């Protein structure tokens, strides 16, 4: 099951540049939350702070409190590897391991976490591919085909399956459909809708219609600040802040 995320006083820097300032946000468990805003507003930085990916960039750092379920992400004893296992991430461009089979791609994270039981691994790979709505398309070629041989949309669902295999509680998606055609995009969107039954999903998107279609809650970021955060239908019909309205109606950005 998904867990809620509580963010308090989160600040993030690239070198000396403050790119996120004092973010407070409660993300509801088992819901889809969209993060929108113009380029450079800090939305990707925000989600990368949630699973400590931000700090993998040289001179980047973050401070503040991020609690994912019972896990204190920035607490003294937290292990970044464990954090990233529990909080999976899917990126803009599908990035399957090109030399690995479809099976190998999905099992990679399991192997990395020391998983050795072959029968259980088979089950987990099948379950993950089914959850990612890819199983029917690849089940006959699991070992024969490489991940790179799939179409763009299938590759992205493969990457989602890979993230799901390690049984995370939260799935972060950074522009997961922006490199895909409309049919693959609608498959991913349908998948996101299904996934929230089992996971908490946070999606960064430039596409406001996509946010409106998939997310129950939407946060609008601008220049490193969270300007407005509310139910998606409220944000897209009657936003409270003029800056949100100006952005979503295309009056700036």
């Amino acid at each position, binding site marked *: 099951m998904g867990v809620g995320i509580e963010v308090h006083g989160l600040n993030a820097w690239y070198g000396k540049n403050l790119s996120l300032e004092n973010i407070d946000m409660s993300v509801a468990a088992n819901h889809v939350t969209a993060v929108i805003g113009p380029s450079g507003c800090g939305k990707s930085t925000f989600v990368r702070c949630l699973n400590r990916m931000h700090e993998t960039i040289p001179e980047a750092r973050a401070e503040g409190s991020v609690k994912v379920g019972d896990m204190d992400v920035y607490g003294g004893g937290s292990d970044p590897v464990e954090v990233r296992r529990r909080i999976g991430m899917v990126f803009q461009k599908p990035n399957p391991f090109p030399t690995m089979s479809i099976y190998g791609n999905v099992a990679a994270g399991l192997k990395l976490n020391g998983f050795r039981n072959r029968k259980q691994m088979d089950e987990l790979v099948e379950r993950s591919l089914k959850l990612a709505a890819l199983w029917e398309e690849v089940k006959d070629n699991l070992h024969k085909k490489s991940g790179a041989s799939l179409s763009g949309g299938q590759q992205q669902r493969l990457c989602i399956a890979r993230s799901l295999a390690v049984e995370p509680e939260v799935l972060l998606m950074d522009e997961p459909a922006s490199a895909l055609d409309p049919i693959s995009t609608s498959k991913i969107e349908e998948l996101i809708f299904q996934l929230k039954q089992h996971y908490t999903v946070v999606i960064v998107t430039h596409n*406001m*219609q996509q946010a*409106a279609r998939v997310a129950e809650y939407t946060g609008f970021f601008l220049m490193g600040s969270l300007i407005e955060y509310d*139910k998606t*239908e*409220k944000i*897209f*019909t*009657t*936003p409270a802040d003029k800056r*949100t*309205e100006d952005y*979503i*109606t*295309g*009056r*700036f*950005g």
Partner: protein
Amino acid sequence: MTRSRFHHGLDELKEKLLRMGGLAEQAIDRANEAYRTRDSKFCQMVFSGEAAINDAERDIDELALDLLAMQQPMAVDLRFILAVLKINADLERVGDQAVNIAQRVLDLISEPEIQLPVDIPRMADSVSTMVQRSLEAFLDGKAEVAEAVLQMDGVVDRMKDEAFVVLVQKMHDEPACTRQALNVLLVSRALERIADHATNIAEDVIFWVRGADVRHGGAHFRE
């Protein structure tokens, strides 16, 4: 980069609706003039003007549909287009009611003129003012002007109720006047309907500007 093509489309939609509002106002004024002067020429002007209102309705619906389909408007723009679609339907109905009034006037002037104890021109002035103000509220996006229109609706309702009482009494007392009294009763009902459409327009302006649903006497904001 701002969406200039889209915003140009919104301006065009507003302009078209205001032009249609002008046609609807003209139809009301001509119908009222026909009543006041008992001149069938004004009735004919109302009838011949109806086609332009109907064409405008279709034209506005089409442009609104295109903007919805191709620009995926959000927030204030989405509320604006929804308001335009509803106001468009109301203005078309205003045109229909003006035609109803003109038809009643034609029937009235085919009968001898009699004195009736109702002040239709006064009621018509109030109704005309309501339509004018509701369109002014739309033009300037002024919710407070729209609120003033809502206050006027009760006055027109009372005028119609009073007309009903005195005209029914007249029909009872002087059955020979029934035809004329009934026609005037129907004119007052058409005017009251126009006032209802002006009220709808005002409510739609408030929805567009403030995002509040004030229909049916409430103020409902989305939570």
